[in-house]
């Protein structure tokens, strides 16, 4: 076992990336320590239920609503984002981020064991082959130093680890290739009634835009959510779904609780606790309530010589007096891994005085354009996972030279995201003086026809979109708060125009009612070429320490090793030079498996 405070590998962050790397390295027999900023919580189901109760009691059901704020490791909240006043985007002083705009950065993450996978939706799409070489193909964005085919075996590992449910025959589009005879671990999550109706109503429909005609199809979404195991998986070995941590019979299948974001009551949805549990069983040590504050390195060689962290005892740092509310400690290892999420990784490197100018730059999200309306008949809103199908057809094409691609996410939860329905519908009905049977009928008629689209607009890396730090902005433990500068470009706005047009045409095709109406006082509202647009954050944060070929153009090489610090690896979405139009978790998980392999090779070589 490890000597006092010396490990083979120290990982900062107990999320999915850190969990995968830890689990893989422990499998190979290495001693691994994970430092986690969030509070100490065991893996029992009783403890998980505390999150559930917090969620039930919270009147505002934002993604971080089950996961209490912790002044020692603060989290950004969706409600921190301000609105627009007199046509000017406001940036308030509350909240963890210090934002300068010009556009509001609206995505959030969770600092706890399990990380953001606690509240994620679970969508697990692979990137397209084109997404890896956008600069070459479209003259925009960046090229990755690796390609889709390089990543294929790691995608399979990620799909295994997360437990992805999908039918392979539906998923080979726009160049996505699979190994011969590959099937996903579990068969697809049943598509919602809404999906099926939309599919029926748009058979043979086309989207016409800028003199191009596009065919499109409603396609089931691969997701990290338990479904029926596919007996053909893994050469006939099959697959055993992993239920709730600490309660394995629970969560063996999705039950349609419709609470996925922010928390699955039965853990049928994957969360990183499942991977962390395995890692811990193999001897990985997780030290929680330890916030990494500085990475110490040798000025000449760049070699990392230790990670300084602040270990806090009590939940609320603000309760302590000035003198001593944390203990500062140092941990030493042969290899170091930052897995604290894109923003925190960048912040930590900046706080440590890392020189690479790309650190913190190229911050990306998926701006999500929301549109919503009523189907021509009841479609059973508010049942099942947040989204079970989408329209991937516009994820690629020559048009990407001129405008962003987008993926269409079909929402099963009525207008919950854009308007706050069904509560909003209730308020609306009450203001019309409806009550009793009339109230119930009015609500049922409306709510049951509601659906929404989320258009995930691809965003490109821009050096001006960045995370920085400043002495003025620190948290209760004296660690830096991230400062965000962020904007979207015309390329993205053009993509939004196309998305809005798609939505209009779609509602017409299905003979539904388009009810999209943007409030100019909402943060994220803009006007472009005479059209009103409104976008929100998808919860995807990426690009802050991109992968590339040199230290001038990137922070890590294709091994995910820092150019300038050879014993430091970075994992997470921060490595991604482009986002494409897929939710990035699957790609990030694949990259994490690859990084683990590279770290293992290093450690094996050291032994010899």
């Amino acid at each position, binding site marked *: 076992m490890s000597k006092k405070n010396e490990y083979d590998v120290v990982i900062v962050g107990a999320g999915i990336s850190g969990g995968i790397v830890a689990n893989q390295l422990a499998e190979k027999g290495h001693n691994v320590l994970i430092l986690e900023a969030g509070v100490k919580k065991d893996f029992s*189901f*009783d403890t998980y239920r505390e999150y559930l109760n917090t969620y039930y009691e919270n009147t505002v059901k934002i993604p971080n609503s089950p996961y209490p704020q912790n002044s020692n490791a603060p989290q950004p909240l969706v409600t921190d984002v301000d609105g627009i006043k007199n046509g000017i985007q406001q940036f308030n002083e509350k909240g963890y981020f210090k934002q300068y705009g010009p556009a509001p950065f609206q995505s959030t993450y969770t600092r706890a064991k399990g990380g953001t996978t606690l509240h994620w939706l679970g969508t697990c799409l692979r990137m397209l082959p084109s997404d890896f070489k956008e600069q070459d193909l479209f003259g925009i964005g960046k090229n990755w130093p690796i390609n889709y085919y390089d990543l294929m075996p790691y995608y399979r590992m990620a799909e295994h680890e997360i437990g992805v449910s999908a039918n392979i025959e539906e998923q080979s589009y726009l160049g996505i290739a699979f190994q011969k005879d590959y099937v996903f671990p579990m068969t697809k999550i049943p598509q919602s009634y809404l999906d099926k109706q939309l599919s029926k109503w748009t058979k043979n429909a086309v989207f016409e835009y800028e003199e191009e005609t596009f065919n499109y199809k409603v396609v089931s979404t691969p997701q990290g959510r338990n479904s*029926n195991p596919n007996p053909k998986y893994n050469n006939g070995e099959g697959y*055993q779904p992993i*239920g709730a941590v600490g*309660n394995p019979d629970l*969560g063996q299948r999705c*039950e349609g609780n419709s609470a996925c974001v922010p928390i699955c009551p039965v853990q049928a949805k994957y969360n990183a606790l499942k991977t962390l549990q395995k890692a811990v069983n193999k001897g990985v040590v997780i030290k929680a309530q330890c916030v990494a504050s500085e990475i110490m390195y040798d000025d000449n060689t760049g070699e990392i010589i230790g990670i300084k962290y602040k270990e806090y005892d009590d939940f609320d740092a603000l309760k302590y007096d000035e003198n001593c509310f944390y203990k500062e400690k140092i941990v030493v290892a042969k290899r170091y891994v930052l897995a604290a999420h894109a923003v925190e990784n960048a912040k930590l490197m900046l706080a440590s005085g890392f020189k690479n100018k790309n650190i913190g730059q190229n911050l990306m999200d998926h701006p999500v354009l929301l549109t919503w309306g009523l189907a021509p008949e009841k479609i059973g809103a508010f049942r099942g996972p947040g989204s079970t199908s989408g329209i991937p057809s516009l994820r690629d094409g020559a048009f990407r030279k001129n405008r962003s691609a987008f993926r269409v996410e079909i929402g099963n939860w009525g207008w919950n995201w854009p308007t706050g329905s069904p509560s909003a519908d209730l308020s609306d009905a009450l203001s019309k003086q409806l009550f009793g049977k009339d109230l119930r009928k009015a609500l049922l008629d409306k709510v049951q026809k509601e659906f929404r689209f989320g258009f995930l607009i691809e965003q490109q890396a821009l050096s001006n979109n960045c995370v920085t730090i400043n002495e003025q902005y620190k948290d209760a433990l004296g660690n830096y708060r991230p400062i965000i500068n962020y904007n979207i470009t015309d390329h993205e706005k053009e993509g939004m125009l196309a998305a809005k047009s798609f939505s209009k045409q779609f509602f017409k095709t299905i003979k539904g009612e388009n009810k999209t109406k943007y409030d100019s006082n909402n943060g994220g509202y803009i006007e472009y070429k005479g059209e009103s647009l409104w976008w929100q954050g998808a919860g995807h944060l990426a690009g802050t320490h991109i992968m590339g070929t040199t230290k001038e153009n990137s922070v890590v090489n294709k091994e995910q090793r820092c150019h300038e610090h050879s014993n430091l690896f970075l994992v997470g979405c921060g490595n991604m030079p482009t986002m494409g139009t897929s939710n990035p978790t699957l790609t990030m998980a694949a990259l994490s498996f690859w990084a683990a392999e590279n770290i293992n090779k290093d450690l094996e070589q050291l032994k010899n």
Partner: protein
Amino acid sequence: MPSINKIELFKNLQTAIELEHSTIPPYLAAYFTINQDTNAFSWSVIRSVFMEEMLHMTLACNVLNAVGGHPFIDNPTFIPEYPTEFNFADRKFDVGIVKFSKPAIEAFLEIEKPSEQKLRVEGEHLKNLMQPINLEEKTIGEFYQAIKDQLIHLVEEYGEEEVFNGDSSIQITAKHYYGGGGKVIEVHNLETALFAIDIIVDQGEGASGTIYDGDETFFGQEQEVAHFYRFNEIYLGQKYNEGDHPNENPTGEKVTINWDAVIDMVDNPKASNFPEGSAARIKADEFNQLYSHFLRLLHLAFNGQSHLLVKAIGMMYQMKYVAAELLNCPTSDSSKKMAGPPFEYIPLAERKQFHWLVEELVVELK
């Protein structure tokens, strides 16, 4: 070649199916009358136990199907009339549809109590083999041991193929069954049949002289204590520690049991006891309809249409909702007691259509 007389084997396996099922309504009644917030531990324990009983019932159906028999589920005698008497070798006791309480847990302990004798006695067993096993002279564990002996004897005499001549395509597999205490075993020969029966016994009574249920051996799952000991943990308000001995009290961490945070359900509710037209009566009738339809669906699933088992799960959720409504209905205007799920059988001819009824059953009603 004379065909094998399997009648007694079929009868005993049918008894096994009915036995495993009979414990479920009482467990559900206790489960429905508490909630996850105020009695999280007990709620989890009872849930895990009845999920395993469902697995046991499924395993017993698989064994019966494997030997060419047919589970008979949709029939008036399938559900016992509660309170019902369990008549074992060493003890007799009543089990009813009652709210979560010390008497309820005492009854559950009685059901799951391990047999004193775990050793097989040569000769004596063989003598009785072709006689119907009268549960009155056995514990549950011994009853299953005798079925195992029957199977072994038949195979010795007639060969595996003749004994296990059932249609293998109708076996319930892991594809159709999940979340219930382990993977379901497809039965097609003596080894799998004996394995399936071992699971039933070990999860209930404990794996040979320990407090554990063998799930680690069977399923690679975390060590769980067997049903009897789980109920004991509730009864005594304390968990077992690794290494605790079956004959001693648990020495693990204490757990809080909120005996008061329980819906005051009337004992052994019957639909006809609630006034006509009352909410209690309407919902009780609906529950009985639902349960009877459900048994029909199980019957179809276990008799060749295995894909229907997944639809049965939807009906289980419906049961939860209707039970919750029932438990909110006072039994009469003046009473403080609440109605509850009666689990009474309604014959096919009297069943009605409901909005929650799956297509396959609607078709049968026409």
